[in-house]
């Protein structure tokens, strides 16, 4: 997936959860990514965030720190 498209998608998720209190929002974003994003895109997202995460919503950036990818997908 193109990075710009990925960033847009993640930010859309963050914009929904932004209406919730901070901790709940971060947990909600992370839970959504973990439950619905296939590991290769979670990996891409984590790598993108580690590289600075340009354009990512602050809540998304925070949430991504708790998103994981199983060993076989790393």
């Amino acid at each position, binding site marked *: *997936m193109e990075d710009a*498209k990925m960033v847009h*998608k993640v930010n*859309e998720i963050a914009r*929904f959860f932004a*209406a919730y209190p901070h901790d709940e929002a971060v947990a909600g974003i992370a839970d959504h990514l973990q439950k*619905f994003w*296939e590991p*290769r895109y979670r990996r891409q997202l984590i790598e993108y965030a580690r590289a600075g995460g340009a354009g990512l919503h602050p809540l998304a950036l925070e949430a991504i720190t708790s998103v994981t990818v199983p060993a076989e997908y790393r």
Partner: protein
Amino acid sequence: MSLISELDYGTPARQSATGVTLEIDGKPVTVPEGTSVMRAAMECGVQVPRLCATDSLEPFGSCRLCVVEIEGRKGTPASCTTPAEAGMKVTTQSPKLARLRRGVMELYISDHPLDCLTCPANGDCELQDMAGAVGLREVRYGYEGANHLHEAKDESNPYFTFDPAKCIVCSRCVRACDDVQGTFALTVKGRGFASKISPGDMLFLDSECVSCGACVQACPTATLTEKSVIAAGQPEHSVITTCAYCGVGCSFKAEMQGNEVVRMVPFKDGKANHGHACVKGRFAWGYTTHKDRVLTPMIREKITDPWREVSWDEAINYAAGEFKRIQAKYGRDSIGGITSSRCTNEETFLVQKLVRAAFGNNNVDTCARVCHSPTGYGLKATFGTSAGTQDFDSVDEADVIMVIGANPTDAHPVFASRMKRRLRAGAELIVVDPRRIDLVKTPHVEAKYHLGLQPGTNVAVINAMSHVVVTEGLVDEAFVAERCDRPTFERWLEFIADQRHSPEATEAVTGVPAAALRGAARLYATAGNAAIYYGLGVTEHSQGSTMVMGMANLAMATGNIGRRGVGVNPLRGQNNVQGSCDMGSFPHEFSGYRHVSDDAVRSTFEEAWGVILGGEPGLRIPNMLDAAVDGTFKGIYIQGEDIVQSDPNMRHVVAGLAAMECVVIQDLFLNETSSYAHVFLPGSSFLEKDGTFTNAERRISRVRRAIPPMAGLADWEVTIALARALGCEMAYEHPAEIMDEIARLTPTFSGVTYEKLDRLGSIQWPCNDNAPEGTPVMHVGGFVRGKGQFMITEFVATDERATDRFPLLLTTGRILSQYNVGAQTRRTANVLWRSEDLLEIHPWDAENRGINDGDLVELASRAGSTTLHASVSERMQPGVVYTTFHFPGTAVNVVTTEFADWATDCPEYKVTAVQVAKTSRPSAWQAAYEETRGETTRRKRAGSR
């Protein structure tokens, strides 16, 4: 097998707690108060002769054939219009009654052609039957007098003829059009001898008739007759099955001569449709035997090669070999599959099983991705289950009906007729839609409020309605206290009460006048039973899931959940889109909406299937295409979907498919996606297989094989062959065994068997120990998730905005005569009503651009452009244009973008910023398409040789 004829009780059933006991020809019978004498007679096995009465219509009392004698009363009242009363003693046969009836029949027959032997209704004519029943032996008046025998036939409708020479003016057709269909297209013109049935002084085809067939079904003679019956003669056996068009899931009798369908007749005992139909299900079944059907498997190494016809074994082995090769080279997750919402539950279950158990991953998805995936997400979050709350019959008890982003008269016509009947009986209507859909004002129905919002502002509108409810003290406090989660409610209360959600504050964004919105909210909250029915105008937005939650919030806050007449009801698009979702077609869920990461759930499937299953979500369809472009996804098995035509941003879809090394298509026709396929496996139509469909009201209905599979195998058998070739044994002899496995593995289906389906006719899930015969209304007494959860639904404007370059907003949808990508309906006479996609545009927008009705126009967005003809219409609001996606030559999805629902990736088909301009030539894409399709056809022919 024999021809199934449902018993006709003459007049409709009545509901009453009070019974009345009377005697019919000396036989005692007890019936609900309000029941007619005619029906009471039928209840005790006595059929009173009749012509103008039938139990789908209110009694009319015009034919005078059903006269009876009632002890203590003068005269001979019509039994159809006389209510049964306690203690009545009714006589249905006497010399006097026989004389009267013969007299009536003599008058009818004196003006009726005596061509019974060559009449298409011979063997299925109530006039003929009644002549026999009353013992008609002569017509004293002769046949030479004034008559109607030379009236001209109207054969303009492609599916039925109107022969006024055979008409007895019983008005059954007029009443069926009025009362059952609700179109009011027919009338009785003239008086007395000059009375004549008329579709409004014009041909049927040119009239307002919607060809639902209700008049044909109601006609007791050969006046209105299916052309297929005229051509073939009377059927000799019937097969009860379920329609393969929209999510209403109408039950039909396929009336057959051997292996030929003579006609499809809506089944009176069908619980979704109660004997009604629409033009598609009733008449547009000719595609099943269309010459374009591909009946031999085909393969080719490259998509530029000609197709090569091969045996089933060779095609299956080639596909399996390619999938194995790709996985060996690119990894286990490099392939996936798409299940079909047009196929049966059993077939869909097998495809997802094949992906999970044979491919070894969760890369399975379904077309609900592009339609109602937000429904699943939103209703699961709030109520706890991913489905609508009511049965269709529930609408009869609604006091106010709110239709949001749906056009039922076009897309779900049989339910629309039911809804209109309730509206004519007094329920109020709110329509929330950018377009002035037909339901806003149609004969004897008018919306009290039409909230003509700007596309993309649904959430702002629903929040504003909830704001009114909360700030004006209209919350159902008792319901919320008992049924809903208090902390989430209180948080939502604070959120929604904020002034930024008020109708006055949102009016500038939504375009909905605050006063109208307040009025609609008050009506919804205070009218009694309020029911929401919604469609893809809710889901196909960047905030689709948020909007579903917003509707659920409103319904919970006003206590409109958990009983008849209320609810939140998605009108599902395709025949089995509910079922395909139920069956585990999403990449993150097993059947019954259970996440693949749930170890306990996964272990039950692992034990049953004898394989280790993945606990990570797989790829959604758009992800599959992204991954294909990225080079990590190389093979796909697509059963019964045409993603090139139906999915957004066609260029991206095509790029993804073209990047794959093995695309396997299973379909009836060489669809648009097959242009990028390497293996083509012939599909089987709904007439050719056994199985079940699940409709929008969670109703599981049997699909029964009426003819053998034309290509030799039913779709479920093809999937089994492919699985076996991949080393995954699937040992099923019949779809009933697949359903048994579904029931074993899916708690909400645990009580479902074919035996029970045959016994009950249909079953609404959940069907289990708690509800052995199914669940018509959900969340009665408590939500599936326990307490109802209020969600925070902040309005977030879509990033797809009208700009100077693209100043208009495009929404897309369906029309009555065509269906989805049109693969079925384009291959029927329905093209007489519409043979191309049209762009509906408001007169102001048209005038500003110098566009006249019928002009060829270019429709352009940042994604691409196409051309089509303009239809200037005041149904549109200024700034909004509309078209359909039925015709591949238009390829409207060249124009739509990849913006999608934040939660589910459901595309934002309802908001695309576009410009429209007059043009004189097709787009470059269309020109290339014509050339490519020509190539495809030639390659197919070359392959066939």
